[in-house]
């Protein structure tokens, strides 16, 4: 039954609806987002009765508030870290409410990037929960006049062990709140055998909202009086506005005003790109208004950038001596000895992130302060750039973090949030900046294009006696330092300086390349192209030697040992090499396991089918993947099955972990099949999912079997490490099926005949 009511006079509709709109509806407008907390932005957990630390609050009704300080972009981290707190607190998960932290340095690192949330915060979360638990125990003991040692916790309850008396957490919250917060040394963490949630996991806290349309992303943020903006960015990186035409745009229904944005001052870092913003009553009007702006640009020096020419230059550089970043034995003398050598060149183009939610941010500048609502991986970086752009103190920038509709690294660069803040100051209202998909594809921080040259000297059995690998790519550091042309240790380490092979003569080099677009990190970053080159070359050598690729790979990995990387610069993803050594035995184990799980060498495959393998360590996690492909007479490639084995140490949330590796296979399928950004005259040629296709349901792996290897190692990453081995295993499988070796990505550039 339709119920019709007039809701147009509701205060929060002012400025939301188009001018003169009469809206008839029942409960059609969601409650104002976050408005209650807009003033200081602190989560409700802060206001609870018991608030022992930044991450926990307990109310007298027993509600436990746990603050998620990392961003939720699909990894379920917003659930998994609070789950660790709840475990140590012995809290009933059904009575837990999760609150998203604003950007605040007190939480520590909030840049949800680099697959390290669990690794970096497991202990912090455990201690946060254990501290609250101890306070509740002490409160109960005080009430009962018993020693603490006679009290224990059960689910959401403190129990007096001798008498069975018990008090709920809510009943104890007031008493506990008057106790001193225990010191770290006083805490006793649960033994793993007593864990309730760690290692078992829970579904996403937001699951029900996500399937009913209630989940709130950055795209859904709204406040009273806000306007919408869409920005015409310089088509060439570093370009500037010369002129534009206001008249036609201002005639578009709903367009309010046109606002130029200054170009950035190099280095670009996270500054807005500049351009011309159309401010309107709704997103559609802002998009429409852009079409008649007719901006004339001064394109600047990057106008000469042509990705085809650039590719050839990179490939030439890759064949010249580069900067040596790791050197063992004497590669050159082995190469001149006159034995058998083999070399191959590999290439991976620029890649775009293309998260399903295009970039968007809402910001309000008021009384010298900015309040922003953004799907950001890095709210503290939002504070930094907004404070710089507006010349206000960092603590005058409040950044609320919404759910992120995908991110993959793009949303840790907050240029789009800075745009909203800059525009709000100019317009005098809250402004929501919405990027179109075309903006998203054309103005990304691309995963860099890379050329890799590989060379091996081979013994009579085809095993390398010397191994040279050289990569050339414009580095990510170029966005912070325009003169940067070499890879930094943080990216060279990614599957490159740590090539784990037992080869006595081994040299790793890196050549120079200057960037002409913004370069950034994308899910698994340099591991994508480095892993592709190393694992493809390994497979090539195996086939040339007439050996089984799995046996050959295990032979190159060699015996179980800790890699000695002390003579190269190896940051080990920011982790201690003592706690997280590079253990070849773990890479061997996942390789052996995946071969077994996939039925390697045992399964009968049909015509046009093939299996490929690759193994790779990234973000401290060891992964091996077998991909099965079928190629039909038209050269169309199906992926019926993927098996992947991971050793990521301790796993908090196994189901979420499996999902990450299923997703990584699809992400890798997109990279291999069609991932390619190109440029002519400095202008990016792709624009949307028609010319930057990503894998669809019929192009993705049909079935990805994820096997988690039992491991007593400390926790490592799970968001990114599935991508690199998938990419090479996929192209290796295509070779197995067709005899065609893919040395350059993407596959869409190659025609596969029938096998």
């Amino acid at each position, binding site marked *: 039954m339709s119920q019709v009511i007039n809701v147009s006079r509701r205060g929060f509709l002012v400025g939301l609806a188009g001018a003169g709109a009469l809206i008839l509806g029942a409960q059609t407008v969601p409650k104002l987002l976050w408005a209650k907390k807009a003033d200081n932005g602190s989560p409700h957990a802060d206001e609870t009765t018991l608030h022992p630390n930044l991450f926990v609050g307990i109310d007298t009704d027993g509600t436990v508030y746990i603050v998620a300080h990392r961003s939720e972009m699909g990894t379920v981290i917003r659930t998994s870290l609070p789950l660790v707190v709840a475990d140590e607190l012995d809290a009933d998960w059904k009575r837990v409410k999760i609150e998203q932290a604003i950007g605040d340095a007190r939480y520590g690192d909030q840049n949800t990037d680099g697959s390290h949330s669990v690794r970096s915060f497991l202990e912090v979360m455990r201690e946060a929960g254990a501290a609250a638990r101890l306070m509740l125990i002490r409160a109960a003991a005080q009430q009962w006049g018993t020693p603490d040692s006679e009290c224990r916790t059960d689910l959401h309850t403190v129990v007096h062990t001798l008498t069975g008396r018990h008090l709920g957490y809510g009943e104890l919250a007031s008493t506990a709140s008057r106790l001193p917060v225990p010191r770290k040394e006083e805490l006793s963490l649960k033994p793993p055998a007593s864990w309730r949630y760690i290692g078992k996991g829970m579904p996403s806290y937001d699951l029900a909202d996500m399937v009913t349309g209630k989940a*709130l992303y950055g795209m859904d943020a709204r406040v009273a009086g806000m306007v919408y903006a869409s920005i015409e960015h310089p088509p060439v990186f570093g370009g500037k506005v010369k002129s534009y035409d206001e008249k036609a745009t201002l005639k578009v229904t709903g367009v309010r005003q046109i606002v130029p944005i200054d170009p950035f001052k190099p280095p670009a870092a996270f500054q807005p790109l500049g351009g011309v913003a159309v401010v309107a009553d709704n997103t559609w009007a802002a998009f429409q208004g852009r079409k008649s702006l007719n901006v004339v640009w001064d394109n600047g020096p990057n106008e000469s950038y042509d990705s085809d020419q650039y590719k050839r230059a990179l490939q030439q550089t890759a064949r010249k001596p580069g900067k040596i970043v790791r050197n063992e034995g004497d590669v050159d003398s082995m190469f001149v000895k006159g034995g058998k050598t083999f070399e191959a060149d590999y290439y991976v183009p620029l890649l775009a992130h293309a998260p399903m939610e295009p970039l968007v941010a809402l910001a309000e500048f008021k009384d010298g302060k900015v309040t922003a609502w953004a799907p950001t991986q890095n709210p503290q970086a939002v504070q930094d750039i907004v404070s710089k752009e507006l010349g206000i103190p960092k603590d005058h920038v409040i950044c609320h973090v919404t759910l992120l509709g995908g991110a993959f690294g793009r949303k840790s660069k907050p240029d789009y949030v800075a745009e909203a803040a800059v525009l709000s100051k100019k317009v005098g209202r809250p402004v929501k900046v919405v990027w179109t998909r075309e903006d998203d594809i054309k103005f990304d921080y691309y995963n860099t294009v890379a050329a890799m040259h590989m060379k091996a000297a081979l013994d009579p059995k085809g095993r390398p006696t010397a191994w040279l690998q050289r990569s050339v790519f414009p580095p990510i550091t170029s966005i912070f330092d325009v003169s940067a042309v070499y890879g930094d240790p943080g990216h060279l380490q990614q599957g490159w300086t740590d090539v784990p092979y037992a080869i006595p003569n081994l040299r790793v080099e890196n050549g120079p390349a200057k960037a002409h677009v913004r370069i950034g990190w994308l899910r698994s970053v340099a591991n994508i192209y480095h892993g592709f080159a190393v694992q493809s070359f390994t497979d090539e050598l195996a086939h040339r030697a007439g050996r089984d690729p799995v046996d050959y790979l295990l032979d190159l990995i060699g015996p179980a040992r800790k890699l000695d990387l002390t003579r190269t610069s190896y940051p080990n993803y920011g982790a201690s090499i003592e706690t997280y050594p590079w253990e070849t035995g773990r890479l061997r184990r996942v390789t052996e396991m995946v071969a077994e799980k996939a039925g390697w060498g045992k399964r009968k495959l049909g015509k046009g089918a093939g299996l490929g393998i690759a193994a790779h360590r990234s973000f401290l996690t060891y992964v091996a993947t077998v991909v099965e492909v079928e190629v039909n007479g038209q050269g169309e490639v199906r992926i019926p099955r993927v098996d992947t084995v991971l050793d990521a140490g301790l796993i908090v949330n196994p189901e979420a972990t499996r999902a990450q590796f299923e997703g990584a296979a699809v*992400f890798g399928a997109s990279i291999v099949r069609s991932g390619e950004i190109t440029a002519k005259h400095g202008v990016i040629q792709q624009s949307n999912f028609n010319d930057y296709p990503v894998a669809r349901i019929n192009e993705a792996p049909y079935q990805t079997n994820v096997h988690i290897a039992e491991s007593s190692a400390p926790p490592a990453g799970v968001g990114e490490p599935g991508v690199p081995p998938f990419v090479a295993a996929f192209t290796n499988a295509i070779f197995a099926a067709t005899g065609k070796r893919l040395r350059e990505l993407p596959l869409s550039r190659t025609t596969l005949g029938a096998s």
Partner: protein
Amino acid sequence: MVRLSINGTLHQLDVPPDMPLLWTLRDVIGLTGTKFGCGMALCGACTVQVDGLPIRSCVTPVSSVAGKEITTIEGIGATPVGQRVQEAWRALNVPQCGYCQSGQIMQAAGLLATNPKPSDQDIDTSMAGNICRCGTYQRIRAAIKAAAKESA
């Protein structure tokens, strides 16, 4: 004035007739469950149902759906098929970031309404217009099959 019936509720709106239904839903009415992904009917994030059939609201002028029954993710749970699909999505933990899932669910519910026992090929054909960048496709397929089974 455009008169729209959305999830059983009548709305009378003063919007340009060529404004896409997507932005009318999101910016004018405030139903934000329907998502913007591409603006060109390439990704399916904006999928809603019009008279029970899935359509891409980002390229559908609001004037073209006046007087028709529009169902969005906020309303699909009121139908038996929509409810089953949402339950299957939950049971199999389909979403990762979740952003595309409104569109996926609207498309899947549309598929099952006309084809209660879809084959793999039927699922591919129907769902290929809906992109999930997180890569939840195998769970989407499994959830569609689970929802189909429950209708038996």
